[in-house]
């Protein structure tokens, strides 16, 4: 399970440039689905047909894209100016090792003498070790994307730190569910959606849901926790189990789904906690409101230090998410 997750985090996939992740996952999920395709925006959609004669359509979604940087100018000096893709915390990324989609390594640094509170794209650049524009342009061109280097590490028996767990952890969970469903068939048609461009406004899941017209959906994404030093009050904590989303800033989840997940958690002895996130949003909202709408819920993976290079999750929570989702689908 950890090895699969690690494998998925190693692939480069900034919003709008997810094709490498899509191709990797397409291969990984192939043995566990009936068919799969990549749509116009780049979403990977895989289907496993159920045994029922009148199957419902259940959509399970995790987003493939990660936040990162896009090259918009190469200076005469060979330094590279970038713009953010998604919610970049510039302080968290400063002095970080970055790598481009084509494997070019570099460091993201601020202009000399810049105060940490002033870190922003106009005062930062990537140094790829090039002496001048010409040599830089041999390796990097406008439109190339960079990310903070992937670096998943086990801290102890259950805790894992690194990036991009947002949201390859969700992709990993959807993949693990696919394995379970293949081993133990369910009545309904299950659509596994690995969506694009969540970090820039939930764009991919909108068109994927439009094409599928699901009856029910579950989204898997990371959520913040209230258990770090100085954190705002929040009931979710690392190791507390699968987080059943009630609401965030973009969505109010279907209350029947919330109740059913809570009941299943109790009945089956799967550790869970209820989540109300006071900031952020996920694909849940775009799926809920696409077409004539669908019943939408979400199971979140509690995560500390989201959007930094040291995102942290607990594999016991990860496992709980898979188990809870599978019980839900089975029912």
């Amino acid at each position, binding site marked *: 399970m950890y090895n699969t997750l690690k494998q998925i985090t190693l692939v480069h996939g900034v*919003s*709008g*440039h997810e*094709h490498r992740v899509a191709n990797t996952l397409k291969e990984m999920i192939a043995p566990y689905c009936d068919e799969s395709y990549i*749509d*116009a*925006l*780049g*979403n990977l959609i895989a289907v496993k047909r159920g045994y029922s004669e009148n199957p419902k359509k259940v959509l399970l979604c995790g987003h493939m894209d990660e936040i990162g940087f*896009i090259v*918009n*100018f190469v*200076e*005469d000096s060979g330094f590279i*100016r970038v*713009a*953010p*893709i998604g919610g970049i915390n510039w302080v968290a990324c400063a002095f970080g090792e970055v790598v481009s989609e084509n494997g070019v390594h570099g460091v993201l640094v601020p202009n000399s003498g810049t105060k940490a509170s002033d870190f922003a794209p*106009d005062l930062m650049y990537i140094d790829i070790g090039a002496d001048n524009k010409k040599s830089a342009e041999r390796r990097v061109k*406008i*439109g190339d994307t960079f990310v903070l280097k992937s670096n998943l590490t086990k801290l102890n028996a259950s805790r894992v730190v690194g990036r991009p767990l947002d949201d390859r952890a969700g992709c990993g969970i959807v993949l693990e569910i696919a394995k379970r469903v293949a081993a133990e068939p369910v009545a309904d048609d299950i659509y596994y959606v690995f969506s694009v*461009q969540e970090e*820039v406004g939930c*764009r*991919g899941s*909108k*068109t*994927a849901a*439009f*094409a599928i017209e699901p009856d029910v959906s579950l989204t898997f994404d990371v959520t913040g926790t209230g258990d770090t030093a100085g954190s705002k009050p929040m009931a979710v904590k690392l190791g507390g189990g699968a987080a059943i989303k009630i609401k965030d800033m973009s969505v109010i989840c279907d209350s029947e789904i919330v109740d059913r997940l809570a009941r299943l958690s109790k009945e089956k002895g799967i550790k869970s906690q209820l989540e109300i996130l006071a900031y952020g949003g996920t694909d849940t909202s775009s799926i809920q409101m696409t077409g004539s709408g669908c019943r939408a819920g979400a199971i979140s993976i509690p995560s500390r230090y989201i959007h930094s290079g040291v995102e942290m999750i607990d594999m016991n929570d990860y496992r709980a998410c898979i188990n809870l989702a599978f019980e839900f689908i089975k029912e």
Partner: protein
Amino acid sequence: MRLQGRELLEYLCQKFGPTGFENEVADAIIEQLEDNCDRIVKDTFGNVYALIKGESSDRVMISSHMDEVGFMITDIDSDGYIKFSNLGGIDPKVLYGKQVILGNEKTRINGVIAAKAIHHKRREDRFSVTPIKEMYIDIGAKDEDEVKEYVNIGDFGVFNSDFVFFGTDNKYAKGKAIDDRAGCCAMIEIIRRIRENNITLPFDTYFCFTVREEVGLSGARVAAEKVKPSRAIILESTAIGDIAGAPDHKRVADVGSGGVISIMDRSTIYNADFVNFTLNTAKENYIKAQVKRYVSGGNDAGHIHKSGKGVKCVAISMGTRYLHSPACVASMDDYESIRELVFAMLKNMKAEV
């Protein structure tokens, strides 16, 4: 009368078409395109669609917006001064002392945007920018009743600005509404060229002239749901920073270096394969094109790419200085590059891009 090239661009730019009142522009486009396409229709929202049938019924959409930034009358006071609100993003610094045309279905009337003159300002306020709510439009009427003989609350306004060609070989155009009548103009010329040369395009191609882009209530959103294209080319104008004092990495693009191809902006991340097809088409046909070097702005692609099951989009913009002012400046060389590039793309488009 059928106009071409520079005359057509000037004709379209001088039409009265603020956001929400695009009928005059729409009618001009329909008139210019008569007998040139397989079908031309206007929808309830005001968008105009011109269809050129191709070999395959797979659909390609090309879109330019007809609306321009402008004004709406919000109040008329007893002295006959007209309060207004802006339609679309207009810098208040641009407004004071500018000539405008106000109008509705029946009337057009000249006016000027006024505020307290520098002589009447307090010393400390002299060099501050007057907010729009303290400005008014003066149409030379003595009172409210006289104003209301011509225009009323809810009526529209646009900049009144001569269209001028200037610079060496008259290469540059200056005027209002170049954003995005230049795109509309290119589409008309492309449609005519396809017809005059009896060219059969590979795909059914819908030329969409859209409404309400400038306030984000995009007509293109409606158009995309209606056309259901698999690919879309968006023709736009982009603000450009090749101006005095801008640092190199904020210049966006250069006027005169061809159409500006977007990779990412605030509303869209463009399809990489389609962008590469665009750049390669330019290269193979020796047409100038450049990549946009800054992540900024947004356009109708923001709505189009998320419509239906998703649409592969590319945006080609005309680099325009002083955008959203009465004196937008653009290069006619760029206009021609964009027209040639889009024409070449439509002819050579394959199913896989």
